[in-house]
């Protein structure tokens, strides 16, 4: 089969070639799906372009190459093309015209979408949020938040829930740590007082329980706040949009971290004493089981078994310096205690043993694995 090849004298530079992975092809085939190009950051050229479906995010990477690629379209020639008899080939059956050339392709790599919370205000429960007409609030809606994040809708909502994000009168905000703690405490107490089932907490019932006997004028525990508490400390019950199962471990850990901060910041505390203090911070009769191991990644042991609060955000972000500081604070670590402090810096995704061995020494003592400096 022979084809005449032509090219337009003026080439169209607006075409691009995009790698379509099997996952992307699935999205394309779904008539209800949508795909959107987005750029992270606030300026037009600030951040990298990503491609988002409703559930996933792909980073675009431009792969240049040294060949000439011509994109061509078949057309019907009005004129009879003079036969090129030089080559002794069959007469051309049709004509193609080059309309674009490219020297690169866009590769697509699936990545974790990142929610952009840079401009989202922290709300501590005060009654003056939001300001009238959302004045001075750069992000005025969840749609705005999604549009400004290099993130799919599903990933956005998941991260939003985990962060303690709340929408008050339509305006996105993040509840402060203190406000979250108060709201959680009040929710648990109210739920227990009304004998609500922690495995099936409905938003309406829970809100009613919290707001029983509260003066509505000064009440900061709006239905939006209660929803945030259920999202952050619970999991949606399958096939029921309005029902959450409380994640008891998450609640216990939240209280535990606050207890470490309160009772073990300035000096260390023996574990048995800490367990009592931790338990005392819960609402009375709260049914949560607690174990020191749940708080790994939040404490170190300066002497023997006693515990002292250590937030990750006080540690160096350079991996070598982080290990150095950790060994300065505690010369030998149980592997399970040190891993939560360093695994976020394992950017190459190495097996944890291999990663630890790059920066520390590992040895077995009985059933335990002990990590110390090289």
């Amino acid at each position, binding site marked *: 089969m022979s084809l005449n090849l032509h090219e337009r004298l*003026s080439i169209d530079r607006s075409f691009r070639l995009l790698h379509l992975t099997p996952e992307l092809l699935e999205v394309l085939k779904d008539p209800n799906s949508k795909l959107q*190009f987005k750029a992270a950051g606030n300026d037009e050229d600030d951040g990298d372009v990503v491609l988002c479906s409703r559930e996933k995010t792909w980073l675009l990477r431009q792969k240049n190459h040294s060949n000439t690629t011509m994109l061509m379209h078949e057309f019907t020639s009005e004129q009879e093309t003079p036969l090129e008899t030089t080559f002794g080939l069959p007469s*051309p059956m049709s004509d193609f*015209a080059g309309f674009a050339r490219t020297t690169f392709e866009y590769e697509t790599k699936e990545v974790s979408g990142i929610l952009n919370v840079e401009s989202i205000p922290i709300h501590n429960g005060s009654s003056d949020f939001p300001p009238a007409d959302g004045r001075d609030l750069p992000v005025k809606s969840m749609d705005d938040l999604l549009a400004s994040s290099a993130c799919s809708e599903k990933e956005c909502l998941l991260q939003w829930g985990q962060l303690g994000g709340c929408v008050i009168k339509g305006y996105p905000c993040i509840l402060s740590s203190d406000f979250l703690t108060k709201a959680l405490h009040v929710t648990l107490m109210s739920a227990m007082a009304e004998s609500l089932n922690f495995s099936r907490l409905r938003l309406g019932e829970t809100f009613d329980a919290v707001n029983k006997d509260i003066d509505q004028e000064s009440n900061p525990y709006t239905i939006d706040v209660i929803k945030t508490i259920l999202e952050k400390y619970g999991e949606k019950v399958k096939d029921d949009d309005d029902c959450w199962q409380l994640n008891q471990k998450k609640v216990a850990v939240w209280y535990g971290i606050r207890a470490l901060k309160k009772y073990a910041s300035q000096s260390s505390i023996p574990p048995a004493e800490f367990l009592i203090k931790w338990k005392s911070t819960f609402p009375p009769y709260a049914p949560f089981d607690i174990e020191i191991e749940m708080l790994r990644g939040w404490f170190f042991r300066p002497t023997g078994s006693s515990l002292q609060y250590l937030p990750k955000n006080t540690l160096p972000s350079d991996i070598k310096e982080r290990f150095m500081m950790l060994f300065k604070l505690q010369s030998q670590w149980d592997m399970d205690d040190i891993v939560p402090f360093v695994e976020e810096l394992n950017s190459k995704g190495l097996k944890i043993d291999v990663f630890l061995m790059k920066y520390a020494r590992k040895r077995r003592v009985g059933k335990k694995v002990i990590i110390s400096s090289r």
Partner: protein
Amino acid sequence: MPSINVSKRQLQTLLQSDQHQTSVSTPLGNMMLEIQGDLELPRQWSEDQRFTTIDKEQLVRWGLLHIDPSRNNAILFVGRKQRLLGSLVKLDTPLGLIKFNQQDGIVEMQDIFYYKVLFKSRPLPIM
């Protein structure tokens, strides 16, 4: 933060019927041709039988492509002096053809390539 939806209007029938490219050109009539080198073509109109105008577009005829579908071999005659040997190659990853229309602010996926015609050997003279 800028964002724009990708329209797949042109692809819809194709995707739903599960038709896709199995030879030189796609069901929508597009072809991808790749040469290991620079292809030099005139950019100015000339009064020569190789120049034509179709639908107000000025074109220059520059080559003849011959495909043997049974063996996926291809021969490309470039101008009057060069001959290249190549083949129809299946792409490792299908490529979406996307147009970024700045004037209308529209992004449209127009086609999907599963194959390309590739010429990576040194051009031979035409005897």
